[in-house]
């Protein structure tokens, strides 16, 4: 790293984190952001069947109301100067024990505001969409209850003013995700996928939990102000440890390698869930965590490097898997993994990348949610068919879905002026600008993966909307009702414009600056931005062309053809599950069985054996009890004689 950069970093680090301004006026509404959906969830889940007819309306209302509060708060926040855009709302003293004081308090600053708008905005759209999507499901009320619970937990996650409260939201979204993945509990696959998601997330949570403990042991507090503001007084070894533990947490929640395996299975849940939780919001929590903890990562370059490596590995894995899957939702899930990999990569680049990571997160929130809803619309039309080999030619029967999906497609492959272009291009650029070997490796990975992204998304488009119809017998695809298409249209508009609007005049960067610091230009550009953009576009164009040549121009067989080892590996999620099974599950099951045996035969066997020994011994001893009075008399005499002898011996 150049001297210049380290100086810039040092300056950054020296600036203390601003203490939040106590909430007053309209900011006292902040808590309602969380409370409204929470109340909605409580009402829906506790009122029972009598709420079935109107339950979904309560759910939508709670989410939309929360969004309106968010909008009010956004404009209030804009009314403040940059340095004072950090509003703290103290709620109550939560865990006060001796030196360990944790308060329940909320922190509304530009970073959390951006998330709040995304969560409530996209969340409300998906609530509305679900009204149509779940209209035939008997459990619709419960579904909305869980969705509201999710929104509340996610808002708590991004609004918490300390790591422990963040952890509450962190596991809260995990719970909501568990409940929603396993929403159709009668499906064993769904129940298993839900459990898997929760457990894998728990592995990540161990990391986050340990990070919080280490923070307490080091800083004596777990609040953002206390930890982040004092990061530069702590040795870099400790910071690296905290950073790596936080990264483990982020890996779990954001489905990054090596904890990525749950996300593909999570597609067992209803499609709106995939759109909201497993694309737009929850899975990006890891990125939020890294960006929020920026002051720690700034001072721990080793941890940052680990972050970028995880991002790069995952974005490549996701892209590879996306090329081979036939299940439309799994393709989108793999693509989500890959896109979050981009964000993590960007976040790992340090101050240069935080704002870009958030930018990509926001644009991704729009286009990926839109595409998931589109996929849901397609499934809805084809009787919940998810196999793309059973699709084809849908663009004529489902024009709105086609157009909105298409716009999302153009956004994700990064075609200008669609939103993905602005964010992804920047990430590739920033990766190259990191400099050194690592910069080249990361940049090239990101660049190549952009091409692969274009390839598999083109494949998806071609197999779904183009070509001849390969629908199952008796399928009558139709366009979705307007309650479903309207959110898709809004999200599509977002996919088109969001990127441009957020970049225009550096608006997002300026907005986030009080939190993530000024975006530092690290050294000189490795490749000039214009050239790099052109190269990227060329690679993307190549990907599109390749995808079209292979899948658009040829007819698609209804069953998947045999393929080479790479494709087979990708179809099997690059053996992530197989590895888990071989390394953890089988030994775990074996150990459990052995322990059950050991507990019964070993521990309990020892105790029962002891009892049996005593019992056997006494069975022998009782033979002395012959029943002959004279033998008893003899033993009494013997005993008396012994006593007398003993007394005499002691006397003498």
């Amino acid at each position: 790293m150049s001297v210049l950069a380290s100086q810039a970093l040092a300056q950054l680090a020296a600036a203390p984190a601003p203490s939040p301004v106590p909430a007053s006026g309209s900011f006292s509404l902040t808590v309602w952001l969380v409370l409204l959906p929470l109340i909605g969830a409580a009402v829906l889940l506790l009122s029972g069947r009598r709420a079935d007819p109107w339950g979904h309306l309560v759910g939508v209302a709670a989410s939309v109301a929360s969004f309106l509060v968010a909008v009010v708060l956004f404009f209030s926040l804009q009314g403040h100067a940059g340095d004072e855009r950090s509003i703290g709302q103290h709620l109550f003293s939560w865990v006060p024990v001796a030196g360990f004081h944790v308060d329940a308090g909320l922190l509304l600053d530009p970073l959390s505001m951006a998330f709040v708008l995304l969560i409530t905005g996209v969340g409300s759209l998906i609530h509305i969409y679900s009204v149509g999507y779940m209209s035939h499901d008997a459990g619709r009320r419960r579904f909305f209850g869980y969705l509201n619970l999710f929104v509340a937990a996610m808002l708590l996650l991004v609004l918490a003013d300390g790591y422990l409260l963040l952890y509450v939201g962190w596991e809260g979204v995990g719970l909501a995700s568990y409940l929603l993945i396993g929403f159709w509990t009668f499906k064993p696959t769904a129940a298993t996928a839900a459990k898997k998601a929760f457990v894998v997330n728990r592995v990540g949570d161990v990391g986050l939990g340990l990070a919080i403990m280490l923070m307490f042991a080091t800083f004596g507090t777990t609040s953002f102000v206390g930890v982040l503001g004092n990061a530069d007084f702590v040795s870099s070894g400790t910071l690296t440890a905290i950073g790596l533990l936080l990264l483990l947490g982020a890996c779990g929640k954001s489905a990054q390698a090596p904890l990525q395996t749950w996300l593909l299975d999570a597609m067992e849940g209803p499609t709106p869930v995939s759109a909201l939780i497993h694309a737009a919001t929850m899975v990006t929590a890891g990125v939020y965590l890294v960006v929020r903890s920026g002051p720690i990562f700034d001072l721990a370059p080793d941890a940052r490097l680990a972050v970028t490596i995880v991002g790069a590995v995952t974005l490549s894995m996701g892209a590879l898997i996306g090329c081979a899957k036939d299940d439309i939702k799994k393709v989108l899930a793999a693509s989500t993994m890959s896109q979050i990999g981009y964000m993590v990569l960007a976040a790992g680049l340090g101050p240069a990348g935080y704002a870009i990571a958030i930018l990509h997160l926001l644009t991704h929130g729009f286009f990926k949610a839109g595409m998931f809803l589109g996929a849901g619309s397609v499934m809805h039309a084809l009787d919940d068919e998810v196999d793309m080999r059973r699709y084809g030619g849908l663009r004529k029967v489902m024009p709105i879905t086609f157009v909105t999906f298409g716009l999302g497609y153009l956004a994700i492959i990064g075609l200008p002026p669609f939103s993905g272009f602005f964010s992804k291009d920047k990430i590739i650029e920033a990766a190259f600008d990191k400099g050194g070997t690592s910069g080249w490796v990361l940049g090239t990975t990101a660049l190549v993966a952009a091409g692969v992204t274009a390839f598999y998304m083109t494949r998806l488009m071609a197999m779904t909307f183009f070509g001849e119809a390969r629908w199952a017998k008796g399928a009558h695809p139709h366009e979705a009702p307007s309650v479903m298409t309207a959110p898709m249209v809004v999200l599509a508009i977002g996919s088109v414009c969001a990127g441009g609007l957020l970049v225009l005049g550096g608006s997002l960067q300026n907005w986030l600056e009080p939190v993530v610091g000024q975006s530092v230009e690290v050294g000189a550009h490795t490749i000039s931005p214009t050239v790099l953009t052109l190269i990227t576009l060329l690679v993307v164009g190549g990907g599109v062309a390749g995808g079209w040549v292979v899948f658009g121009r040829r007819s698609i067989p209804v069953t998947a053809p045999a393929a080479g080892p790479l494709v087979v590996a990708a179809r099997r999620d690059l053996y992530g599950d197989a590895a888990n099974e071989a390394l953890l599950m089988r030994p775990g099951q074996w150990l459990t069985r052995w322990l059950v045996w050991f507990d019964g035969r070993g521990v309990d066997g020892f105790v029962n054996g002891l009892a049996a020994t005593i019992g056997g011994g006494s069975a022998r001893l009782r033979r002395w009890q012959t029943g002959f009075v004279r033998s008893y008399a003899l033993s009494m005499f013997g005993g008396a004689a012994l006593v007398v002898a003993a007394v005499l011996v002691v006397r003498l």
Partner: protein
Amino acid sequence: MSPDWWLYLSAALFSVGAAGVLLRRNAIVVFMCVELMLNAVNLTLVTFSRINGDLDGQIIAFFVMVVAAAEVVVGLAIIVTIFRTRRTASLDEANLLKY
């Protein structure tokens, strides 16, 4: 006369009684031997009472006599019952109270 002689006598009586209890089979005889032992102990107690010059030993001797009388009542009753049911008073025949 030295009180020691009384002690020697009671020791002799006690030994006779003990031998009887251990060696004889007939319940009645064993029973009488037990009585002999008790009386030997009584004799010792009284002797010690005399040696010490107080009444403690004599009081205990009276206790022993009372208990012995009660014991005779119960014991004889048991022996009689056994004899009635088994037509014998041999101790070696009565061993039901075992493990």
